[in-house]
């Protein structure tokens, strides 16, 4: 049986609570970014770009009738946007392979509650908010489709 979305949130909350040094959060995001597998180049279509991100972030959803599988990748041209990729990977740790209802049950302020936004640049905060918005939007759409 797969892990519930509440458990996932609690794990991340506990992880953030365990950080003692301000750099721990960034290191955690860097690790997530490095561990995160990119996506097939053929999936990187314009329509999957998250608007409002400084880097080019792609979020591709696949709905199998009950759960949404997300693929995410970030491109930064000559730079390596590890923090943005880490933020994307963190979001997927909660939302990936969950049902639309589960996704919509998550409090949008959860990431603020755990202190993710502290020290995050406004551009990245806005980008992350756009990513969450897009995830909720996909969840709403697939929720409506599954209820038809």
């Amino acid at each position, binding site marked *: 049986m797969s892990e519930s979305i509440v458990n996932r949130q609690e794990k991340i909350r506990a992880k953030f609570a365990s950080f003692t040094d301000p750099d721990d959060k960034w290191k955690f995001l860097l690790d997530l970014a490095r561990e995160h597998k990119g996506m097939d180049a053929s999936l990187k279509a314009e329509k999957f770009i998250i608007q409002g991100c400084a880097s080019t972030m792609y979020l591709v959803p696949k709905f199998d009738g009950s759960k949404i599988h997300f693929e995410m990748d970030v491109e930064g041209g000559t*730079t390596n946007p590890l923090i943005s990729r880490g933020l994307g990977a963190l979001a997927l740790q909660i939302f990936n392979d969950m049902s639309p209802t589960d996704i919509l049950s998550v409090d949008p302020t959860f990431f603020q509650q755990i202190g993710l936004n502290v020290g995050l*640049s406004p551009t990245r905060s806005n980008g992350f908010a756009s990513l969450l918005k897009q995830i909720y939007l996909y969840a709403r759409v697939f929720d409506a489709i599954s209820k038809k």
Partner: protein
Amino acid sequence: MFSFLNGKSPFDEAEEKLEAGETVNGRPKLPQAPVMGWQDGVFLLVLAALIAGGYYYYQYAKQKSATMFANCDALYVAAEAHAAKYVDAEACYNETWDLGFVSDSLEILRQNRLGAIEDLRNHQKDLYADAMGAMAVRDTVAAYKVVTEYKGPMLLSQGDRKDWNGILNSDAVKACVAAAAARADSIAKAKAVADSLAQVAAELRAKAVADSIAKANKKLARKGKRKKAQ
């Protein structure tokens, strides 16, 4: 796979010597195989060279990384006093992408500083959009105000920078702004004159009222005296 016995079994030599009739206390002499052949020595030397080379390369990469990051750090700190240096700091940090070694703490610093510069760029992009919006509705004064009030670094792309500098340095824009200022000045002057005239008029009116009251009072006083005399 390598062997320190050059592919020979220790018993091969023992057998050879046994055949030659060599014995120790009546028993075949134990084989005296070499500890290693010259090929093994060369292999160990190459291995040692690789380990030493790797270690020195790691030290070199670490040192180079520390030096470059220190340089970028100095530029970034200087930029806090002279905003124009953010461009140099950004270019410096972008050069560090080619480094072979970057520690986690330096990576965090790089990501956060490039993020901060990106924020500054986005702020200027917003102002650029405001200025271009004002220009689109022919509000030259508002556009000029936006670009002249901005004291941050120039972080716009080449094309946008051209538009920005176009507003900032254009003689036509400056003439419009000067004309608008002159117009505003003459309006202010005219208003000041009108205000002072109105004030004078009000004062005159007040004086006239006061005079007429005084006159009426005198008249009444005179009437009163006359009645008393009668």
